[in-house]
């Protein structure tokens, strides 16, 4: 069955946000793009199960999240030591221009439990409602709310502990300077 043009356009317009979500989850741009590609292929293969008129973006996010989850579980079985494996993948990834700016924030984000991380991103960055986020994560709305709260608290702690006493407008600039060898 050929893919409806409208559906294809809806998929394409969801790609930028899907990538941002995937990068936030995996901490790795290349892996994130692979995840997005697989998500699109799955979506096309299962397009009959998409109900026209419902939120295409939320549907794709659900697929991507499930893919990431199953990959994460698989890796968990394969690799004994999982604590910090995400943080390690951050360290080994080559610095890429615009992504460098948020290194400190990403490192803190990487230390959150996956449940809390995804909830915070969906609600705090992707712009989904608590209800939509709950549907994507297949859990109760209250669970999403408490995960988001815990994520925020933990991030505040982590960022304060890691020397961002004056966590403020200059934060990103200081991160760049620090990473660039502290010029000036």
């Amino acid at each position, binding site marked *: 069955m050929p893919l409806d043009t409208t559906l294809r356009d809806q998929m*394409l317009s969801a*790609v930028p946000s899907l990538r*941002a979500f995937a990068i936030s989850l995996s901490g790795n741009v290349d892996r994130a*793009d692979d995840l997005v*590609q697989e998500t699109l292929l799955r979506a096309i293969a299962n397009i009959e199960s998409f109900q026209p008129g419902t939120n295409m973006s939320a549907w794709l996010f659900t697929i991507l999240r499930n893919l990431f989850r199953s990959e994460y579980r698989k890796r968990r079985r394969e690799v004994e030591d999982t604590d910090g494996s995400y943080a390690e993948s951050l360290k080994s990834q080559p610095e890429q221009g615009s992504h460098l*700016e*948020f290194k400190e*924030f990403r490192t803190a984000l990487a230390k959150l439990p996956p449940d809390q991380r995804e909830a915070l991103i969906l609600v705090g960055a992707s712009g989904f409602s608590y209800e939509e986020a709950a549907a994507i994560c297949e859990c109760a709305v209250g669970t999403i709310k408490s995960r988001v709260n815990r994520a925020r*608290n933990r991030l505040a702690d982590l960022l304060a502990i890691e020397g961002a006493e004056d966590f403020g407008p200059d934060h990103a600039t200081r991160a760049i300077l620090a990473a660039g060898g502290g010029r000036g």
Partner: protein
Amino acid sequence: MTDDDKPDRPGHMQTEVNQRKPKGRLGRDVQSKIGQQLRSMYDNVVSEGVPDRFSEMLRQLDQQQAQPDQKDKEVN
């Protein structure tokens, strides 16, 4: 200080209690800064748009589906 901050037990030393940061709750300031960082990190990626890789992939899938006959002819 607001009425909400009144200690339950009058006469209890309150200075120390009131100076302590409420546990498990973030100031609005910290919350909004975390929100800002999160969104600008996210929007930074969003602003990169759709990489060619994905539009190209969907275009190729379209072509394959639109011209299945041609493909058969090529094989023959």
